[in-house]
C-alpha cells in the first residue's frame, strides 16, 4: 500500500522558492493569499485514490495537494496548516475499507477532499455517514458516489456525461437511434447507459446498450452488435484504453462512416487525438464534465498556475485535476469561515453542508452541498470534438435533461439554487 503523508507546512518554503523561479506569467492565488507560511496546529484532511490498478485515479488528489500546499504557504486556515493524508485503495474493496477506517477512525481527519476511485465510495459511504464526516470527492465513477448523504463530487460521473452526449447528438447531429457501449459494471455501465436509453425513449427515439467486460477480448463481436442494433449513432462510454481498442476495430472493419460518433468524458485526454489517429479528427465528439482544460477564465488560469508552482511536472493537468482543485478551493473557503480554534469534524461537516451557490469558470453551473440524501451539484456539461492537435468546443454549457435529476432539482429548489 502506498501511503503519502504530507505535512505541507514544512515544505512550503521550498515550494514557494520553486514557484518564484518558475512563475513569471501567473501568480497562484489561494486561501488568505498573504505569503506567510502557516505554523499552527495542523488540520488533518484525507483522500482515497485508486492509484495502483487498471487506471490511475489520483490526479484530483495531486491537484488538491497542490492547492493545500499553496494555502499552507499563504496563511493556512487562519494560521493552521492542512496536513493532507492520501491513501491508495489499489482498486481493491477490502483495501478501500481498511484505508477509509484508518483515515476516519485512526487519523481522525475532519473531512476527505479530492478522492478519486472506482471502489472507495461504494465501500465507505456508510462509514462516512455513521461517523459524520463529509467527503468532497473529485473523481467519481459509480452511482453510489452520487447517491450518498455524506459524499458530494465535483465531477459529474458517467450518467450526466453519457446523457449529455446523447442529448447533444440528438440536437446537433440529428441522431434518432443511439447505442451506448458501456462497461459491464451495474453501478457504472448499466447506470449510465440505462439512463441514456431512458432519455432517448423519453424523446420518442430509440436507445440500446452493449455492455463489455473490462477485459473483453472479442471487440469485433461488440462492433458487430453495434451494427445489428440498427443505431445511427454510437456512444462510446468506455475507459480510454478499452475505447481505443474498440475504435481501432471499428476502423479495421471500415464501419466508421456508418455511424455518428459521440463519447462520454474518458476520451477527453490530451493523449487521445494522437492515440486514435487522424481518422477520428472532426468525427469523434466528446462530452466534458468541466470546462476545457485550456480555458482562460480566472479559475482555469489559477488552477494551472498552482499546478505549475506546487505540483510535480508529471502530475496530469486533466479534468479530474480541475475537479480536485475546485473541491480543495471550495473546502478551504468554507474552512476560512470557521473559528480556527473550533475546527473539528462536527464544525467542518456543518460548514461543508452549508456550501451554497459557489461559482467557477471551470463549472457550467453552481456548486453546492446541502444536507440531502443524494448529491450531484454538477449536472451541466459541454461538448468538444477531436481535432488534429487536441479538442475544439462544439457545444456550450447545457444542463442535462434526465428524469434521474428530479430529486437533485427538488433539493436545489429547496436551497434556492438555479431556476
Amino acid at each position, binding site marked *: 500500500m502506498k501511503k503519502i503523508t504530507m505535512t505541507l507546512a514544512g515544505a512550503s518554503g521550498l515550494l514557494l522558492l520553486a514557484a518564484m523561479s518558475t512563475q513569471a506569467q501567473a501568480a497562484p492565488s489561494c486561501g488568505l493569499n498573504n505569503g506567510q507560511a502557516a505554523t499552527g496546529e495542523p488540520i488533518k484532511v484525507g483522500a482515497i485514490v485508486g492509484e495502483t490498478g487498471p487506471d490511475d485515479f489520483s490526479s484530483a488528489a495531486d491537484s488538491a495537494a497542490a492547492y493545500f500546499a499553496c494555502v499552507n504557504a499563504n496563511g493556512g486556515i487562519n494560521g493552521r496548516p492542512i496536513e493532507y493524508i492520501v491513501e491508495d485503495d489499489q482498486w481493491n474493496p477490502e483495501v478501500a475499507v481498511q484505508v477509509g477506517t484508518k483515515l476516519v477512525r485512526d487519523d481522525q481527519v475532519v473531512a476527505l477532499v479530492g478522492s478519486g476511485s472506482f471502489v472507495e465510495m461504494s465501500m465507505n459511504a456508510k462509514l462516512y455517514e455513521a461517523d459524520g464526516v463529509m467527503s468532497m470527492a473529485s473523481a467519481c465513477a459509480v452511482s453510489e458516489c452520487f447517491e450518498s448523504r455524506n459524499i458530494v463530487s465535483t465531477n459529474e460521473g458517467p450518467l450526466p456525461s453519457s446523457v449529455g452526449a446523447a442529448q447533444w447528438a440528438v440536437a446537433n447531429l440529428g441522431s434518432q437511434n443511439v447505442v451506448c457501449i458501456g462497461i459491464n459494471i451495474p453501478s457504472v455501465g448499466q447506470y449510465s447507459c440505462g439512463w441514456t436509453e431512458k432519455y432517448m425513449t423519453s424523446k420518442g427515439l430509440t436507445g440500446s446498450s452493449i455492455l463489455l467486460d*473490462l*477485459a*473483453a477480448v*472479442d471487440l*469485433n*463481436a461488440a462492433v458487430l*452488435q453495434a451494427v445489428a442494433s440498427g443505431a445511427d449513432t454510437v456512444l462510446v462510454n468506455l475507459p480510454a484504453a478499452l475505447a481505443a481498442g474498440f475504435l481501432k476495430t471499428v476502423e479495421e472493419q471500415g464501419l466508421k462512416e456508418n455511424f455518428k460518433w459521440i463519447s462520454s468524458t474518458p476520451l477527453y485526454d490530451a*493523449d487521445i487525438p494522437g492515440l486514435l489517429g487522424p481518422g477520428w479528427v472532426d468525427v469523434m465528439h466528446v462530452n466534458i464534465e468541466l470546462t476545457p482544460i485550456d480555458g482562460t477564465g480566472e479559475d482555469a488560469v489559477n488552477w494551472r498556475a498552482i499546478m505549475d508552482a506546487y505540483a510535480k511536472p508529471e502530475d496530469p493537468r486533466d479534468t479530474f485535476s480541475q475537479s480536485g482543485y475546485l473541491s480543495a478551493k471550495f473546502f478551504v473557503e468554507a474552512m476560512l469561515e470557521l473559528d480556527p480554534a473550533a475546527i473539528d469534524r462536527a464544525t467542518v461537516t456543518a460548514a461543508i453542508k452549508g456550501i451554497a451557490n459557489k461559482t467557477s469558470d471551470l463549472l457550467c453551473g453552481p456548486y453546492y452541498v446541502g444536507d440531502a440524501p443524494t448529491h450531484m451539484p454538477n449536472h451541466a456539461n459541454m461538448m468538444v470534438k477531436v481535432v488534429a492537435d487536441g479538442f475544439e468546443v462544439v457545444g456550450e454549457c447545457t444542463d442535462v435533461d434526465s428524469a434521474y435529476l428530479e430529486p437533485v432539482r427538488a433539493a436545489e429548489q429547496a436551497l434556492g439554487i438555479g431556476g
Partner: protein
Amino acid sequence: MSAYGLFLVSGLAVGALYALGGVGLVVLNRATGFLNFAHGAIGAMGAMTAWQMAAWAMPEPVVWGAAIGIGALLSLLFGRFVAPGLAHREPVVKAVATLGFAIALLGVMNLLWVTTPRRLSFTLDGLFITLGGIRITGTRMLAFGGGLAVVAGVTILLVTTRVGLMMRSLADNRPVAALLGTPVLRVETLAWGLSGALAGFTGLMFGGLVQLDPTLLTFMVIPVIAAAIVARLSSISVTFAAGLLIGVTESMLALYPPLAPFRSAAPFAVAIIALMWLQRGRRLTFAGED
C-alpha cells in the same frame, strides 16, 4: 453472409489468440511439468517492449523481434535459474512459483510504464480481405496462420525430432527419462525458450488486436489456461481446437442478448463442460481411479 457467419469468423480470430497462448502453455507443461501462470505476464512484457520500440521509431521487424526476444529471454531466465530448484516439487508448488514471477513482472511493468491509454499498430493492420461482409485484417490472419503454423511446427518437433522424443519422454516419466540419459536441463531450457517466444508473439497479438495494458495481458493467461485444460495440458492440436471453440462460443453468445454481457465467462464454461464430458464414466476409488 448471415449474422451467424459473421460472428463465427469474428470468433475464429479471437479463438486463434486463445489457441496460440494455450499451445505455448502445453509445450512447456509437457516438457517441464510447469503450468506457467507467468505466460501472460511474459507476453505482456514482450508487447510493452514492442510498444516502447515503436515509440522510439524503431523499424517494425525490430519491434516484432523485441517482443519475441524479450519473451524468450524472460522465460529462459526463469527456466534456467529458478525452475531447476523446483524440479522435484509438486505441480502446485511449481505453478505458484510462476504466479510469483507473474506478479513480479507486473510490478516491473507498472513501474516502467505508467498507466495511460496506449495502442499498438502494425503495417498488417491496414491490409485486409473481406469474407462475407466482415474484414479480416492482416494481423488477424497472421494470428490465425501463426497459430496453425505453430501447431504444425511443434507437432513435427515432438514427433519427428530427437529433441521432441526427449521432451515426450520427460513428459511421460521424468525419473526414468533422466536415468536413461535424457539431458534434462538442456531439453527443459529449450522448452522454456520456445514457450517464452510463443508468449511474446501471443502478447504482441493480444496487445495489437485487443488492448495494450500490462494488467489485462498478464491475466489473459486465465482464459488461455482454460483452452489448455480442455486438452488436459497434453495435446497440442486439441488445445488449438479448444482455443478456437472458446473464441467462437464467446463471439456467438453476443447473438443471445441475455447472455451477451457475460460472454467473457465462455472460456471457463467451455472448460468445465469439456472436463465433465471427458471424465464421464470414471470413478474415484480408494485405490485410485478405475
